[in-house]
């Protein structure tokens, strides 16, 4: 069997087109579709069937990755509404938010000098996670109200926050290596 590559990701997994989805149901449907289309099922078939299988599975994997993460799921929903699709720049004009991010970053850069840098990193990470949750909440409300510009802005901010989390991990790794 082949997957309809034009079907939207929510239909593919038989899910309602909404931000709040049943993530367990998504996983179950993903695995059962994998059972049907994965190239391993066509290892003994002809080249044509194998090509279709690779395409279908690649599409399925992409769809699953997109819906699994609330951030990419959010962007995908907006894309379906015709917002931010194609080449887009992730920028925000929210000065207060940018200022806060700058401060966080400065804090992170100086964290090696803290009394217990690992405790300080944990605290900063918790704080940043809370920022992310707050922005996702903003998205949820804006999406429900049909305010897509605000929704898009919230997701863009999550991109900044994710980058920050990544840097926290990198700094932690470096500090650990220095201890060895």
């Amino acid at each position: 069997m082949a997957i309809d590559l034009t079907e939207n990701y929510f239909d593919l997994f038989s899910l309602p087109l909404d931000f709040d989805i049943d993530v367990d149901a998504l996983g179950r449907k993903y695995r059962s579709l994998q059972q049907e289309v994965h190239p391993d099922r066509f290892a003994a078939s002809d080249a044509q069937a194998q090509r279709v299988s690779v395409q279908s599975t690649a599409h399925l994997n992409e769809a699953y990755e997109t819906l699994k993460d609330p951030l990419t799921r959010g962007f995908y929903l907006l894309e379906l509404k015709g917002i931010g699709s194609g080449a887009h720049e992730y920028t925000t004009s929210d000065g207060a938010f940018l200022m806060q991010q700058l401060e966080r970053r400065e804090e992170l850069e100086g964290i090696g000098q803290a009394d217990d840098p690992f405790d300080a990193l944990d605290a900063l990470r918790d704080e940043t996670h809370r920022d992310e949750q707050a922005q996702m909440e903003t998205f949820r409300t804006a999406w429900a109200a049909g305010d897509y510009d605000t929704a898009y802005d919230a997701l863009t901010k999550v991109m900044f926050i994710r980058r920050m989390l990544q840097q926290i991990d990198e700094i932690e790794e470096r500090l650990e290596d220095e201890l060895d």
Partner: protein
Amino acid sequence: MALLQISEPGMSAAPHQRRLAAGIDLGTTNSLVASVRSGVAETLPDEQGRHLLPSVVYYREDGPPLVGYEALEKADEDPFNTIASVKRLMGRSAGDLKKLGGQLSYRIADVDSNVPRIVTAAGEKTAVEVSADILVALKQRAEETLGAELEGVVITVPAYFDDAQRQATKDAARLAGLNVLRLLNEPTAAAVAYGLESGEEGVIAVYDLGGGTFDISILRLHKGVFEVLATGGDSALGGDDLDHAIAEWMLSSAGIESSDDHHLMRRFMTAARKAKEALTDADRTEIEVELADGKHWRAELTRARFAELIRPLVKKTTGACRRVLRDAGIKKDEVREVVMVGGSTRVPLVREMVGEFFGREPLVSIDPDKVVAVGAAIQADVLVGNKPDGDLLLLDVIPLSLGIETMGGLVEKIISRNTTIPVARAQEFTTYKDGQTAMSFHVVQGERELVDDNRSLARFELRGIPPMVAGAARIKVTFQVDADGLLNVSAMEETSGAQASITIKPSYGLGDKEIEAMLRDSMEHAQEDMTLRMLREQQVEADRVVEALDAALAKDGDELLSADEKADILAARDALIVARQGEDTNAIKHAIKQVEAAAESYVERRMNSNIRQAMAGHSVEEFE
């Protein structure tokens, strides 16, 4: 053979419809082939009952290569033509080889090609060709044992193998005439052999201590997906080092300083290996070695003493385990199962220290030499279609990120590591100059920011872009990775109606064309080999004719022949000798016929004279 076939409802009971598939563990030191027979996955032995096939190939001038134990025997007398550990060269460029440096005991041809070629008596060989010869030996073993042709195989590769190494492995299989159903990560195969994929979700550690390499892999099993979280190890640590530790102790107890006597050293190493193996089950063992002066040295080695000798080596492996857990971001107590792979994990101290490190008993019930091949066979059986209702589905992830070089030597990642495969991702690029009609791409693999720190997979150029202002062209680059982790990249200009696209297959400099050339080569060589053999046969035949004729002439030539008759026969004989020196099989054949014709009446006369005995042992038929 089963006399009665009892089948579950809905399951086929027709044994003839069963498709033959095999799992192949293509190892650095040893290789194995396994298959599922009567529902049981087991490795297949050779005629002497040996399951392991040493991954060694011996090349000679006149004849097919020797593979396995036969090749191993040649290692001493002809090291340059005995190729071992070729897996270390798979997918490596000539540049990579320089980094491996002095580790290689064979000669690399100095040609200007990306692919290093080993100089042997049978010509230059690439690592792919040497591996193909090993695969052919395994294929033959499987087909002889199973009694039919293999429909497909699963070949295992280390989890850390990059795209070029995987591609090289697939190329070797193609060259060996094998249909590869799937390349499978070795640690995943070991986990499958233990049926772990059907168990609970969690983290699995696979500890693989082989003859000359040590690998530790941390896998996460999550909803049917085996994700390789991290791999580590030591490419120069293995069972051989344990033997060395014992041999050193033996030499110092025997009061011998390391000696140049190669044979003596070999006897010590052999005795050390035997002692190591004996101590798997026994608490103590007697060691005896014949010294250079013919006297015998004897000693007793206890398991406790042995443990003391090798403790520092085993400690090195648990140190690597600690590092890899950190890389994976996993705590020791999160590891649910530890799978033991490789012959050296039979050593009691290894099991004990690994068990202590992870705080749980490692899994050892499947022979650690065979466990990878067994897992591969189980997967092969499913893939070839013998278990249509089976739900074994292994989803792998790519081990290293794939990206493209951008301005300033930076890497733009297109597909990041640990993405479930197969996967396809596209990214748009644009021109940076007005009127630009071509764009070159450099595909790299690795986690580093700078291109130079990553592995270069391929470069290609997209031409035929319609001239536009800088930044107006839209070039879509698509990366597609198949279920084996192999990459295809294509680029397409899509603004205007004009489209141009190119597909490349990165493969360390060996393109499809080169592979085909190799295949053709090997077929032509088969033809050459055949021609050569016919020539040799005719030459031997010529020698026999001349020898028999000379013997007869010496005995009664002057008696039975006139001077003219004898001169005719001798002329034909000399012509044969001249032809025999040449390489023309037909000329030799013809010259033999001429001798036979010239000597026809002579032969008749000899028979009539009842002197057949003179020709006894040389058979008269030669003159017919």
